[in-house]
Protein backbone atom coordinates (compact mmCIF):
# COMPACT_ATOMS: atom_id res chain seq x y z
CA UNK A 1 0.00 0.00 0.00
CA UNK A 2 1.33 3.35 -0.90
CA UNK A 3 0.20 6.65 0.29
CA UNK A 4 1.55 8.44 -2.75
CA UNK A 5 -0.78 6.53 -5.04
CA UNK A 6 -3.83 7.94 -3.33
CA UNK A 7 -5.45 10.92 -4.93
CA UNK A 8 -4.31 13.99 -3.09
CA UNK A 9 -7.11 15.97 -1.58
CA UNK A 10 -7.17 19.37 -3.21
CA UNK A 11 -8.50 21.92 -0.78
CA UNK A 12 -11.22 23.91 -2.47
CA UNK A 13 -10.45 27.35 -1.23
CA UNK A 14 -13.32 29.66 -1.65
CA UNK A 15 -12.33 32.86 -3.44
CA UNK A 16 -14.21 34.97 -0.91
CA UNK A 17 -12.46 33.27 1.99
CA UNK A 18 -9.10 33.88 0.38
CA UNK A 19 -9.90 37.55 -0.12
CA UNK A 20 -11.06 37.82 3.47
CA UNK A 21 -7.83 36.29 4.71
CA UNK A 22 -5.72 38.81 2.80
CA UNK A 23 -7.04 41.84 4.65
CA UNK A 24 -7.07 42.21 8.45
CA UNK A 25 -10.59 41.99 9.96
CA UNK A 26 -10.45 45.56 11.29
CA UNK A 27 -10.04 46.86 7.76
CA UNK A 28 -13.01 44.84 6.56
CA UNK A 29 -15.35 46.48 9.02
CA UNK A 30 -14.09 49.89 7.86
CA UNK A 31 -14.66 48.94 4.23
CA UNK A 32 -18.19 47.73 5.00
CA UNK A 33 -18.90 50.92 6.94
CA UNK A 34 -17.73 53.07 4.02
CA UNK A 35 -19.85 51.16 1.51
CA UNK A 36 -22.98 51.39 3.66
CA UNK A 37 -22.31 55.07 4.28
CA UNK A 38 -21.80 55.83 0.59
CA UNK A 39 -24.91 53.93 -0.46
CA UNK A 40 -27.19 55.41 2.16
CA UNK A 41 -26.09 58.96 1.36
CA UNK A 42 -26.56 58.34 -2.34
CA UNK A 43 -29.91 56.53 -2.04
CA UNK A 44 -31.29 58.85 0.62
CA UNK A 45 -30.06 61.92 -1.32
CA UNK A 46 -28.58 63.42 1.83
CA UNK A 47 -27.14 66.86 1.02
CA UNK A 48 -23.38 67.42 1.49
CA UNK A 49 -23.88 70.02 4.21
CA UNK A 50 -25.61 67.44 6.41
CA UNK A 51 -23.55 64.31 5.74
CA UNK A 52 -21.06 64.12 2.87
CA UNK A 53 -20.52 60.79 1.12
CA UNK A 54 -17.11 59.09 1.56
CA UNK A 55 -16.41 59.78 -2.12
CA UNK A 56 -16.96 63.49 -1.53
CA UNK A 57 -14.64 63.42 1.47
CA UNK A 58 -12.02 61.62 -0.61
CA UNK A 59 -12.34 64.31 -3.26
CA UNK A 60 -11.88 66.93 -0.54
CA UNK A 61 -8.67 65.18 0.53
CA UNK A 62 -7.43 65.46 -3.03
CA UNK A 63 -8.31 69.11 -3.37
CA UNK A 64 -7.26 70.25 0.07
CA UNK A 65 -4.25 68.08 1.01
CA UNK A 66 -1.84 71.02 0.71
CA UNK A 67 -3.58 72.58 3.74
CA UNK A 68 -4.41 69.35 5.57
CA UNK A 69 -0.87 68.00 5.55
CA UNK A 70 0.99 70.92 7.18
CA UNK A 71 -1.77 71.28 9.79
CA UNK A 72 -1.69 67.56 10.44
CA UNK A 73 2.04 67.87 11.06
CA UNK A 74 1.38 70.65 13.59
CA UNK A 75 -1.20 68.57 15.47
CA UNK A 76 0.87 65.41 15.20
CA UNK A 77 3.87 67.30 16.57
CA UNK A 78 1.85 68.51 19.56
CA UNK A 79 0.57 64.99 20.19
CA UNK A 80 3.98 63.32 20.04
CA UNK A 81 5.87 66.05 21.89
CA UNK A 82 3.21 66.32 24.59
CA UNK A 83 3.12 62.55 24.98
CA UNK A 84 6.90 62.38 25.35
CA UNK A 85 6.78 65.13 27.97
CA UNK A 86 4.09 63.18 29.83
CA UNK A 87 6.28 60.05 29.78
CA UNK A 88 9.34 62.02 30.94
CA UNK A 89 7.37 63.53 33.81
CA UNK A 90 5.12 60.57 34.60
CA UNK A 91 7.62 57.72 34.74
CA UNK A 92 10.13 59.31 37.15
CA UNK A 93 7.24 60.58 39.25
CA UNK A 94 5.82 57.07 39.47
CA UNK A 95 9.22 55.78 40.58
CA UNK A 96 9.18 58.29 43.44
CA UNK A 97 5.63 57.33 44.36
CA UNK A 98 6.37 53.61 44.20
CA UNK A 99 9.48 53.96 46.38
CA UNK A 100 8.44 56.58 48.87
CA UNK A 101 5.59 56.13 51.27
CA UNK A 102 5.62 59.85 51.89
CA UNK A 103 5.28 60.63 48.17
CA UNK A 104 2.56 58.03 47.85
CA UNK A 105 0.58 59.62 50.65
CA UNK A 106 1.20 63.25 49.75
CA UNK A 107 1.48 63.52 45.97
CA UNK A 108 -0.53 60.56 44.75
CA UNK A 109 -3.94 61.72 46.10
CA UNK A 110 -3.27 65.13 44.58
CA UNK A 111 -2.67 63.56 41.17
CA UNK A 112 -5.86 61.56 41.46
CA UNK A 113 -7.82 64.64 42.55
CA UNK A 114 -6.36 66.66 39.66
CA UNK A 115 -7.96 64.21 37.26
CA UNK A 116 -11.44 65.12 38.37
CA UNK A 117 -10.87 68.71 37.20
CA UNK A 118 -12.33 68.96 33.70
CA UNK A 119 -9.41 69.87 31.44
CA UNK A 120 -11.65 71.61 28.92
CA UNK A 121 -12.71 73.99 31.68
CA UNK A 122 -9.19 75.02 32.57
CA UNK A 123 -7.98 75.28 28.97
CA UNK A 124 -8.96 79.00 28.63
CA UNK A 125 -7.04 79.65 31.83
CA UNK A 126 -3.94 78.06 30.37
CA UNK A 127 -4.39 80.31 27.36
CA UNK A 128 -4.10 83.43 29.49
CA UNK A 129 -1.05 82.01 31.24
CA UNK A 130 0.86 80.58 28.30
CA UNK A 131 -0.44 82.50 25.29
CA UNK A 132 -1.40 81.13 21.88
CA UNK A 133 1.81 79.28 21.00
CA UNK A 134 2.87 75.68 21.44
CA UNK A 135 3.12 75.83 25.24
CA UNK A 136 -0.59 75.66 26.23
CA UNK A 137 -1.15 72.77 23.78
CA UNK A 138 1.69 70.79 25.31
CA UNK A 139 0.45 71.56 28.83
CA UNK A 140 -3.04 70.27 28.05
CA UNK A 141 -1.73 67.16 26.30
CA UNK A 142 0.50 66.44 29.30
CA UNK A 143 -2.31 67.08 31.79
CA UNK A 144 -4.56 64.61 30.00
CA UNK A 145 -2.09 61.87 29.20
CA UNK A 146 0.23 61.69 32.19
CA UNK A 147 -2.46 60.30 34.48
CA UNK A 148 -2.73 56.80 32.98
CA UNK A 149 1.06 56.74 32.67
CA UNK A 150 1.54 57.45 36.38
CA UNK A 151 -1.24 55.15 37.59
CA UNK A 152 -0.09 52.19 35.50
CA UNK A 153 3.60 52.72 36.17
CA UNK A 154 3.06 52.89 39.93
CA UNK A 155 0.98 49.73 39.76
CA UNK A 156 3.66 48.00 37.69
CA UNK A 157 6.56 49.07 39.89
CA UNK A 158 4.72 47.80 42.94
CA UNK A 159 3.85 44.47 41.35
CA UNK A 160 7.19 42.82 42.16
CA UNK A 161 6.40 40.13 44.73
CA UNK A 162 7.95 40.12 48.19
CA UNK A 163 9.77 36.91 47.32
CA UNK A 164 11.27 38.53 44.24
CA UNK A 165 12.78 41.29 46.34
CA UNK A 166 13.96 38.75 48.94
CA UNK A 167 15.60 36.84 46.16
CA UNK A 168 17.32 39.94 44.82
CA UNK A 169 18.59 40.84 48.27
CA UNK A 170 19.83 37.31 48.91
CA UNK A 171 22.02 37.72 45.82
CA UNK A 172 23.35 40.92 47.29
CA UNK A 173 21.62 43.12 44.71
CA UNK A 174 22.01 46.85 45.32
CA UNK A 175 19.00 49.14 45.32
CA UNK A 176 19.89 50.17 41.79
CA UNK A 177 20.14 46.55 40.64
CA UNK A 178 16.84 45.73 42.32
CA UNK A 179 15.24 48.50 40.32
CA UNK A 180 16.97 47.89 37.02
CA UNK A 181 16.99 44.08 36.93
CA UNK A 182 13.82 43.24 38.83
CA UNK A 183 11.27 46.00 39.42
CA UNK A 184 11.48 47.86 36.12
CA UNK A 185 11.22 44.87 33.76
CA UNK A 186 8.40 43.56 35.94
CA UNK A 187 6.63 46.92 35.54
CA UNK A 188 7.02 47.23 31.76
CA UNK A 189 3.82 45.47 30.62
CA UNK A 190 1.75 47.61 32.96
CA UNK A 191 3.62 50.76 31.91
CA UNK A 192 2.93 50.10 28.27
CA UNK A 193 -0.76 49.66 29.00
CA UNK A 194 -0.60 53.19 30.42
CA UNK A 195 1.33 54.50 27.42
CA UNK A 196 -1.25 53.14 25.02
CA UNK A 197 -4.09 54.79 26.92
CA UNK A 198 -2.06 57.98 26.94
CA UNK A 199 -1.67 58.05 23.15
CA UNK A 200 -5.42 58.31 22.75
CA UNK A 201 -5.73 60.98 25.42
CA UNK A 202 -2.89 63.05 23.98
CA UNK A 203 -4.72 63.28 20.63
CA UNK A 204 -7.84 64.48 22.44
CA UNK A 205 -5.72 66.94 24.41
CA UNK A 206 -4.15 68.45 21.30
CA UNK A 207 -7.51 68.99 19.58
CA UNK A 208 -9.11 70.49 22.71
CA UNK A 209 -6.16 72.87 23.01
CA UNK A 210 -6.49 73.90 19.38
CA UNK A 211 -10.22 74.52 19.79
CA UNK A 212 -9.58 76.96 22.60
CA UNK A 213 -7.04 79.07 20.81
CA UNK A 214 -4.88 78.35 17.78
CA UNK A 215 -4.08 79.61 14.33
CA UNK A 216 -2.95 76.27 12.96
CA UNK A 217 -3.52 72.56 13.42
CA UNK A 218 -6.39 70.24 12.58
CA UNK A 219 -8.54 71.48 15.47
CA UNK A 220 -8.21 74.98 14.08
CA UNK A 221 -9.10 73.72 10.57
CA UNK A 222 -12.26 72.11 11.93
CA UNK A 223 -13.33 75.38 13.57
CA UNK A 224 -12.69 77.42 10.40
CA UNK A 225 -14.46 74.88 8.17
CA UNK A 226 -17.36 74.78 10.63
CA UNK A 227 -17.81 78.54 10.56
CA UNK A 228 -18.29 78.37 6.78
CA UNK A 229 -20.50 75.24 7.00
CA UNK A 230 -17.94 73.21 5.07
CA UNK A 231 -18.97 69.85 6.52
CA UNK A 232 -16.96 67.86 3.98
CA UNK A 233 -13.78 69.62 5.01
CA UNK A 234 -14.59 69.02 8.66
CA UNK A 235 -14.92 65.34 7.94
CA UNK A 236 -11.60 65.32 6.10
CA UNK A 237 -9.91 66.90 9.13
CA UNK A 238 -11.62 64.52 11.59
CA UNK A 239 -10.50 61.51 9.59
CA UNK A 240 -6.95 62.87 9.51
CA UNK A 241 -7.02 63.24 13.30
CA UNK A 242 -8.26 59.67 13.65
CA UNK A 243 -5.47 58.45 11.42
CA UNK A 244 -2.89 60.27 13.55
CA UNK A 245 -4.30 58.62 16.66
CA UNK A 246 -4.41 55.14 15.16
CA UNK A 247 -0.91 55.35 13.71
CA UNK A 248 0.49 56.67 16.99
CA UNK A 249 -1.19 53.88 18.92
CA UNK A 250 0.21 51.30 16.51
CA UNK A 251 3.71 52.73 16.81
CA UNK A 252 3.59 52.35 20.61
CA UNK A 253 2.17 48.86 20.26
CA UNK A 254 4.98 47.91 17.91
CA UNK A 255 7.48 49.40 20.35
CA UNK A 256 5.92 47.29 23.09
CA UNK A 257 6.55 44.16 21.06
CA UNK A 258 10.19 45.15 20.69
CA UNK A 259 10.69 46.04 24.36
CA UNK A 260 8.74 43.13 25.89
CA UNK A 261 9.05 40.28 23.38
CA UNK A 262 8.56 37.57 26.04
CA UNK A 263 4.92 38.53 26.40
CA UNK A 264 4.00 38.24 22.78
CA UNK A 265 6.01 35.15 22.06
CA UNK A 266 3.89 32.94 24.24
CA UNK A 267 0.70 34.80 23.37
CA UNK A 268 1.15 34.23 19.66
CA UNK A 269 1.84 30.57 20.32
CA UNK A 270 -1.40 30.05 22.18
CA UNK A 271 -3.25 31.94 19.48
CA UNK A 272 -1.90 29.72 16.72
Amino acid at each position, binding site marked *: MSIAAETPVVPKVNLINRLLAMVPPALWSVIVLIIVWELSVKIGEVPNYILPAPSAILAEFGAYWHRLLPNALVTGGEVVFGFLCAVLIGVPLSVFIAYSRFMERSVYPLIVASQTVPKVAIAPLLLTWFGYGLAPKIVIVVLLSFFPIVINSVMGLKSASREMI*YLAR*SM*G*ASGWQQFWKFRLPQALPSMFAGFKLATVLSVIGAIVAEFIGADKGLGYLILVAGSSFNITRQFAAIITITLIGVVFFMVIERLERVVIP*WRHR*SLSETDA
Partner: protein
Amino acid sequence: MISAAESYISISGVSKTFNGRQGEVHALKDINLNIKPGEFVSVLGPSGCGKSTLMMLVSGLMSVSAGRITVGKKHIDSPNADAGIVFQQDVLLEWRSALQNVMIQAEIRKGDLKQAKERALQLLKMVSLNGFENSYPKELSGGMRQRVSICRALLHRPPLMLMDEPFGALDAMTRDQLQIDLLRLCSDNDMTVLFITHSISEAIFLSDRVVVMSPRPGRIERIIDIDLPRPRRLAMREDTRFIEYTRELTQIFKGLGVFREEY
Protein backbone atom coordinates in the same frame (compact mmCIF):
# COMPACT_ATOMS: atom_id res chain seq x y z
CA MET B 1 23.46 16.56 70.27
CA ILE B 2 25.72 18.64 68.04
CA SER B 3 27.86 21.16 69.85
CA ALA B 4 28.07 24.76 68.71
CA ALA B 5 31.78 24.27 68.01
CA GLU B 6 31.40 21.64 65.29
CA SER B 7 28.30 23.17 63.76
CA TYR B 8 28.02 25.12 60.52
CA ILE B 9 24.76 26.82 61.42
CA SER B 10 24.31 27.74 65.03
CA ILE B 11 20.98 29.12 66.23
CA SER B 12 20.96 29.99 69.92
CA GLY B 13 18.17 31.45 71.97
CA VAL B 14 16.47 32.94 68.93
CA SER B 15 13.05 34.56 69.18
CA LYS B 16 11.12 36.53 66.62
CA THR B 17 8.24 38.85 67.35
CA PHE B 18 6.14 40.62 64.75
CA ASN B 19 4.15 43.73 65.43
CA GLY B 20 0.82 42.87 63.93
CA ARG B 21 -2.47 44.69 63.97
CA GLN B 22 -3.54 42.72 67.05
CA GLY B 23 -0.36 43.67 68.88
CA GLU B 24 2.72 41.50 69.21
CA VAL B 25 2.79 38.08 67.57
CA HIS B 26 5.39 35.63 68.84
CA ALA B 27 6.39 33.73 65.73
CA LEU B 28 9.36 31.94 67.28
CA LYS B 29 10.34 31.45 70.88
CA ASP B 30 13.74 30.42 72.21
CA ILE B 31 14.97 28.34 69.28
CA ASN B 32 18.22 26.42 69.74
CA LEU B 33 19.57 24.37 66.85
CA ASN B 34 23.01 23.39 65.58
CA ILE B 35 23.51 22.02 62.09
CA LYS B 36 26.68 20.24 60.94
CA PRO B 37 28.34 21.09 57.63
CA GLY B 38 26.91 18.95 54.83
CA GLU B 39 23.85 18.02 56.83
CA PHE B 40 20.35 17.93 55.34
CA VAL B 41 17.94 19.19 57.98
CA SER B 42 14.19 19.52 57.48
CA VAL B 43 12.02 21.72 59.60
CA LEU B 44 8.61 20.11 59.80
CA GLY B 45 5.47 21.61 61.20
CA PRO B 46 1.92 22.78 60.53
CA SER B 47 1.32 26.19 59.01
CA GLY B 48 1.78 29.02 61.47
CA CYS B 49 4.56 27.34 63.44
CA GLY B 50 7.11 29.86 62.25
CA LYS B 51 9.19 27.47 60.19
CA SER B 52 9.41 29.83 57.22
CA THR B 53 10.32 32.63 59.59
CA LEU B 54 13.18 30.49 60.90
CA MET B 55 14.52 30.13 57.36
CA MET B 56 14.20 33.85 56.75
CA LEU B 57 16.19 34.54 59.90
CA VAL B 58 18.97 32.17 58.84
CA SER B 59 19.07 33.86 55.43
CA GLY B 60 19.49 37.22 57.13
CA LEU B 61 16.57 38.64 55.15
CA MET B 62 14.77 39.08 58.48
CA SER B 63 16.47 39.98 61.72
CA VAL B 64 16.09 38.22 65.05
CA SER B 65 14.24 39.84 67.96
CA ALA B 66 16.46 38.04 70.44
CA GLY B 67 19.28 35.52 70.31
CA ARG B 68 22.03 34.93 67.82
CA ILE B 69 22.52 33.09 64.53
CA THR B 70 25.90 32.27 63.02
CA VAL B 71 26.52 30.58 59.68
CA GLY B 72 30.09 29.38 59.13
CA LYS B 73 31.30 31.42 62.13
CA LYS B 74 29.76 34.54 60.55
CA HIS B 75 27.22 36.40 62.65
CA ILE B 76 24.08 36.91 60.58
CA ASP B 77 22.82 40.49 60.80
CA SER B 78 22.38 41.26 57.09
CA PRO B 79 21.37 39.18 54.03
CA ASN B 80 23.69 36.21 53.80
CA ALA B 81 25.00 36.24 50.24
CA ASP B 82 26.61 32.79 50.66
CA ALA B 83 23.24 31.07 50.60
CA GLY B 84 21.07 29.88 47.75
CA ILE B 85 17.36 30.36 48.30
CA VAL B 86 14.36 28.57 46.82
CA PHE B 87 10.82 29.63 47.68
CA GLN B 88 7.52 27.84 47.23
CA GLN B 89 6.83 30.11 44.28
CA ASP B 90 9.56 29.73 41.69
CA VAL B 91 9.92 33.55 41.41
CA LEU B 92 11.24 33.25 37.87
CA LEU B 93 11.62 36.51 35.98
CA GLU B 94 9.09 36.29 33.17
CA TRP B 95 11.21 38.41 30.84
CA ARG B 96 14.19 36.10 30.98
CA SER B 97 14.72 32.71 29.37
CA ALA B 98 15.44 29.69 31.58
CA LEU B 99 19.17 30.15 31.09
CA GLN B 100 19.00 33.91 31.70
CA ASN B 101 17.01 33.26 34.87
CA VAL B 102 19.79 31.08 36.19
CA MET B 103 22.37 33.61 35.03
CA ILE B 104 20.88 36.51 36.97
CA GLN B 105 22.65 35.10 40.01
CA ALA B 106 26.02 35.62 38.29
CA GLU B 107 25.04 39.00 36.81
CA ILE B 108 24.21 40.41 40.23
CA ARG B 109 27.31 38.90 41.83
CA LYS B 110 29.49 40.11 38.94
CA GLY B 111 31.53 36.93 38.64
CA ASP B 112 33.06 35.40 35.55
CA LEU B 113 30.03 35.28 33.25
CA LYS B 114 31.51 32.83 30.79
CA GLN B 115 32.32 30.31 33.48
CA ALA B 116 28.93 30.88 35.09
CA LYS B 117 27.18 30.19 31.80
CA GLU B 118 28.96 26.88 31.44
CA ARG B 119 27.88 25.91 34.94
CA ALA B 120 24.33 27.12 34.31
CA LEU B 121 24.04 24.93 31.20
CA GLN B 122 25.48 22.01 33.12
CA LEU B 123 23.02 22.49 35.98
CA LEU B 124 20.05 22.72 33.63
CA LYS B 125 21.21 19.55 31.97
CA MET B 126 21.42 17.78 35.33
CA VAL B 127 17.73 18.45 35.93
CA SER B 128 16.82 17.37 32.38
CA LEU B 129 16.14 20.86 31.08
CA ASN B 130 18.54 20.69 28.17
CA GLY B 131 16.65 21.92 25.14
CA PHE B 132 14.66 24.38 27.24
CA GLU B 133 17.49 26.84 27.93
CA ASN B 134 15.95 29.49 25.71
CA SER B 135 12.33 28.95 26.72
CA TYR B 136 10.56 31.66 28.63
CA PRO B 137 9.04 30.72 32.03
CA LYS B 138 5.55 31.02 30.50
CA GLU B 139 6.42 28.14 28.22
CA LEU B 140 7.49 25.83 31.06
CA SER B 141 5.44 23.60 33.38
CA GLY B 142 5.35 24.16 37.13
CA GLY B 143 7.90 21.43 37.80
CA MET B 144 10.25 22.72 35.12
CA ARG B 145 9.99 26.24 36.49
CA GLN B 146 10.90 25.10 39.99
CA ARG B 147 13.87 23.17 38.56
CA VAL B 148 15.09 26.39 36.95
CA SER B 149 14.78 28.19 40.26
CA ILE B 150 16.80 25.46 42.00
CA CYS B 151 19.52 25.77 39.35
CA ARG B 152 19.53 29.53 39.93
CA ALA B 153 20.04 28.98 43.65
CA LEU B 154 22.94 26.59 42.97
CA LEU B 155 24.80 28.62 40.35
CA HIS B 156 27.27 30.32 42.69
CA ARG B 157 28.06 27.05 44.52
CA PRO B 158 26.56 28.18 47.81
CA PRO B 159 27.71 26.19 50.84
CA LEU B 160 24.19 26.64 52.23
CA MET B 161 20.87 25.97 50.58
CA LEU B 162 17.69 27.40 52.10
CA MET B 163 14.44 25.98 50.78
CA ASP B 164 10.99 27.09 51.86
CA GLU B 165 8.47 24.42 50.84
CA PRO B 166 9.95 24.34 47.34
CA PHE B 167 7.77 21.47 46.16
CA GLY B 168 4.61 22.53 47.97
CA ALA B 169 2.87 23.78 44.85
CA LEU B 170 3.70 20.77 42.67
CA ASP B 171 1.74 17.64 41.91
CA ALA B 172 2.76 14.43 43.72
CA MET B 173 4.64 12.82 40.86
CA THR B 174 6.61 15.90 39.90
CA ARG B 175 7.37 16.26 43.55
CA ASP B 176 8.86 12.77 43.78
CA GLN B 177 11.10 13.41 40.80
CA LEU B 178 12.26 16.78 42.11
CA GLN B 179 13.11 15.24 45.49
CA ILE B 180 15.37 12.78 43.74
CA ASP B 181 16.88 15.56 41.61
CA LEU B 182 17.51 17.64 44.70
CA LEU B 183 19.29 14.84 46.57
CA ARG B 184 21.51 14.26 43.57
CA LEU B 185 22.36 17.95 43.26
CA CYS B 186 23.12 18.05 46.98
CA SER B 187 25.52 15.13 46.92
CA ASP B 188 27.25 16.56 43.84
CA ASN B 189 27.63 20.02 45.33
CA ASP B 190 28.48 19.28 48.96
CA MET B 191 26.03 21.59 50.68
CA THR B 192 24.28 22.09 53.95
CA VAL B 193 20.53 22.24 53.43
CA LEU B 194 17.83 23.75 55.60
CA PHE B 195 14.57 22.51 54.15
CA ILE B 196 11.17 23.77 55.28
CA THR B 197 8.21 21.48 54.67
CA HIS B 198 4.85 20.39 56.00
CA SER B 199 5.04 16.97 54.44
CA ILE B 200 6.07 14.21 56.86
CA SER B 201 7.18 11.77 54.16
CA GLU B 202 9.11 14.46 52.28
CA ALA B 203 10.99 15.36 55.46
CA ILE B 204 11.90 11.73 56.18
CA PHE B 205 12.83 10.96 52.60
CA LEU B 206 15.22 13.87 52.20
CA SER B 207 16.75 14.49 55.60
CA ASP B 208 19.47 13.46 57.97
CA ARG B 209 17.50 15.08 60.78
CA VAL B 210 13.93 16.28 61.10
CA VAL B 211 13.18 19.21 63.39
CA VAL B 212 9.57 19.08 64.56
CA MET B 213 8.01 22.42 65.37
CA SER B 214 4.79 23.29 67.16
CA PRO B 215 2.79 26.45 66.65
CA ARG B 216 1.87 29.54 68.68
CA PRO B 217 4.52 30.41 69.62
CA GLY B 218 6.81 28.46 67.29
CA ARG B 219 9.01 26.14 69.33
CA ILE B 220 11.16 23.12 68.57
CA GLU B 221 9.22 20.11 69.86
CA ARG B 222 11.55 17.28 68.95
CA ILE B 223 14.53 16.50 66.75
CA ILE B 224 14.58 13.09 65.10
CA ASP B 225 17.58 11.48 63.41
CA ILE B 226 16.69 9.73 60.18
CA ASP B 227 18.92 6.70 59.92
CA LEU B 228 18.31 5.60 56.33
CA PRO B 229 21.12 4.81 53.89
CA ARG B 230 22.05 7.14 51.04
CA PRO B 231 21.50 7.44 48.15
CA ARG B 232 17.81 7.43 48.99
CA ARG B 233 15.52 5.50 46.68
CA LEU B 234 11.77 5.89 46.19
CA ALA B 235 11.27 2.26 47.28
CA MET B 236 12.60 3.17 50.74
CA ARG B 237 9.29 4.80 51.43
CA GLU B 238 7.81 1.32 51.86
CA ASP B 239 10.70 0.34 54.14
CA THR B 240 9.75 -0.68 57.71
CA ARG B 241 12.05 1.97 59.19
CA PHE B 242 10.56 4.67 56.97
CA ILE B 243 7.09 3.68 58.13
CA GLU B 244 8.31 3.69 61.75
CA TYR B 245 9.50 7.30 61.33
CA THR B 246 6.20 8.27 59.74
CA ARG B 247 4.31 6.73 62.64
CA GLU B 248 6.52 8.46 65.20
CA LEU B 249 6.10 11.89 63.58
CA THR B 250 2.36 11.43 63.12
CA GLN B 251 2.12 10.50 66.80
CA ILE B 252 3.97 13.68 67.79
CA PHE B 253 1.64 15.87 65.76
CA LYS B 254 -1.36 14.06 67.21
CA GLY B 255 -0.01 14.83 70.64
CA LEU B 256 0.32 18.48 69.64
CA GLY B 257 -3.28 18.56 68.50
CA VAL B 258 -2.36 19.13 64.85
CA PHE B 259 -4.23 15.98 63.87
CA ARG B 260 -7.61 15.22 65.42
CA GLU B 261 -9.45 12.06 64.61
CA GLU B 262 -12.11 11.98 67.31
CA TYR B 263 -14.80 14.61 67.59
